[in-house]
């Protein structure tokens, strides 16, 4: 009994780890799409964020008093060493910051194409994806000469697991103890950020004036415009917030859960997040549920490979690998009603004629 409970907890534990980037990306997509901007570039932003984070964390973590800082005489006596140690100590945070900035920049580019120039959202999003896939490898190659990878990050260069107080002792307490020690404690900080992002996004959308306007601009931008509020500025803020969340997700991939950038490491997670968002009908809590479901299916699949199943013996690899997708199709087709997107989604807005 206790054994089975631990097994379940471990699958749920894996669920959280695998769902965290999906949640952040899906929330990013949700904010963007509720404002009327289709965000198919989630995948590219995720990848670019992962690269920026790993690259900057690696550079910051390995910075020394020599070189760059020596060329800055205004740092003063011993200033170079101090500057380097400041960089070293906060390496993952610099990575996170870089990821957020890069993703917000890509969001702004997407916005510039779709909002200011009223371009096609899908094309712009695909362009972001292609740009990220190519540029990460090219820049990585030029920076590190390791075939587009970043150097592997050391322990101090990434966000390590946080052990919650009393987790060691709590494991002894039956039922509740393992729940606390295995499931709640021991994740890196960004997993908690991801979980926190959902209520924050919900709060922002449904309890603030900004959220009200954001939702309105995704349904009937004319009404918002008539009220004297800038449609463009609202949508720009939405894509920037989306960039922020994608940056955190990218940082999670390469600098928290992973330890370094590998080409194309986002491996379709941006698209899965997009699917989860549609699955969740563009609402935060249902989207969270969808992300957790995808995470759970993948976590379960990782644990089912090679396990003896009743009647059919050891499960074939292909069957297990296809399981999350088959389940998704069944769930999408059978269990959930029609998903209605924001009415003005994908439609450019301009004042006056020709909109």
């Amino acid at each position: 009994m206790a054994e089975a409970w631990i097994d379940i907890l471990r699958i749920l534990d894996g669920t959280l780890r695998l769902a965290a980037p999906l949640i952040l990306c899906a929330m990013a997509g949700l904010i963007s799409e509720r404002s009327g901007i289709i965000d198919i570039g989630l995948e590219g932003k995720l990848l670019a964020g992962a690269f920026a984070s790993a690259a900057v964390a690696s550079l910051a973590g390995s910075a020394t008093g020599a070189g760059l800082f020596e060329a800055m005489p205004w740092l003063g006596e011993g200033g170079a060493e101090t500057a380097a140690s400041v960089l070293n100590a906060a390496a993952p945070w610099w990575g996170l910051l870089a990821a957020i900035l890069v993703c917000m920049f890509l969001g702004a580019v997407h916005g510039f194409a779709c909002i200011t120039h009223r371009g096609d959202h899908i094309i712009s999003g695909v362009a972001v994806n292609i740009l990220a896939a190519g540029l990460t490898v090219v820049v990585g190659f030029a920076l590190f000469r390791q075939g587009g990878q970043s150097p592997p990050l050391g322990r101090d260069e990434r966000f390590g697991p946080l052990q919650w107080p009393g987790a060691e002792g709590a494991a002894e307490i039956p039922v509740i103890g393992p729940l606390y020690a295995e499931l709640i404690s021991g994740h890196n900080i960004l997993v908690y950020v991801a979980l926190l992002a959902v209520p924050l996004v919900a709060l922002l959308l449904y309890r603030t004036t900004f959220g009200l306007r954001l939702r309105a601009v995704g349904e009937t931008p004319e009404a918002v415009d008539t009220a004297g509020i800038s449609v463009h500025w609202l949508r720009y803020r939405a894509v920037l917030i989306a960039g922020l969340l994608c940056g955190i997700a990218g940082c999670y991939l390469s600098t928290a859960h992973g330890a370094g950038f590998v080409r194309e490491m986002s491996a379709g997670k941006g698209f899965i997040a997009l699917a989860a968002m549609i699955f969740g009908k563009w609402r935060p809590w249902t989207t969270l549920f969808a992300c957790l479901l995808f995470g759970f299916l993948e976590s379960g699949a990782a644990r089912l490979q090679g396990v003896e199943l009743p009647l059919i013996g050891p499960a074939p690899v292909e069957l297990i690998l296809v399981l999350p997708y088959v389940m998704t199709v069944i769930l999408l087709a059978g269990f959930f009603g029609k998903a209605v997107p924001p009415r003005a989604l994908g439609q450019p807005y301009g004042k006056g004629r020709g909109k």
Partner: protein
Amino acid sequence: MRLLSFLAGLALALWATLAPAQDFKPAVVFDMGGKFDKSFNEGVWNGVSKFIEETGVEVMEFEVTTETQREQAMRRMVERGATLVLGVGFAQADAIDAVAKDYPDVQFAIIDVFWLDQPNLRQYQFREHEGSYLVGVAAALTSETGKVGFIGGMDIPLIRKFACGYVQGAKAARPDIEIFENMTGTTPAAWNDPTKGAELAQSQMDRGADVIYHAAGGTGLGVIRAVADAGELAIGVDSNQNGLAPGNVLTSMLKRVDVAAYDTLMDAMNGEFSPGVVVLGLAEDGVDWALDEHNADLITPEVKAAIEAAKAAIVAGEVKVHDYEADGTCPF
């Protein structure tokens, strides 16, 4: 002025073509990843640079960055007068096959390919299962739980070959050993998914595995990271990955592509180049296990003795390691 420079250029070009061709002009086409990829290409580069140091012969080189460049690069090398073109990795098989057919007088060689048929092409195949057998022995004897793991990248026969050798070695060293095998996926994306690699490693550790061998490219970096975070032991592959997480990488299964590159260049220079398939196993130092300052404390003298004994037995032919690619099955 312009005419003058044009004439000068023309003269230079003429001189270049008329100048006596150097007898031996080797070229290397590295594959995607580049020659400092800490893995396959870098291994080849190590062999090439050793050759350059010893002989002083200039080697032309090119680093492919997109798939379409492979054949182009090889053709350009030949047009620039290369007498030997060395390709790296199975992804270049089609390109080298086409170019070798068009230039029968030029010598070609490729690493990790064995199925082509050109009279001027040398192909290198590695007996990865023999190296995997050795790390299987190391894993089984080092494991405290009696459970070890294997994580493959894409589910293809080549990776099954790694897995099968590993299982055979582990079971030979310790018959009651329990082995978990996972594949990351069935598409090329499975080589670059460290998140999934980490999750698979975590699932194996949850089931009790304390030594995990990966043959999964970039995905494997996630495996090593997850294993190191949990304080268990990983086994690296292809190049020496002991330094990726010092203290948490038990050893690495080495594929000595540098030997293949060095041999090819040396043979061609000495006029001993021969076409056909060259198979490199333990006996030829084509595969091996890694022991350096990063893992010296992890390998106990008993384990080391056992690995060396297994190696000697395989080299002497007393132990036959099963090759999955030969019959598509793994009897263990």
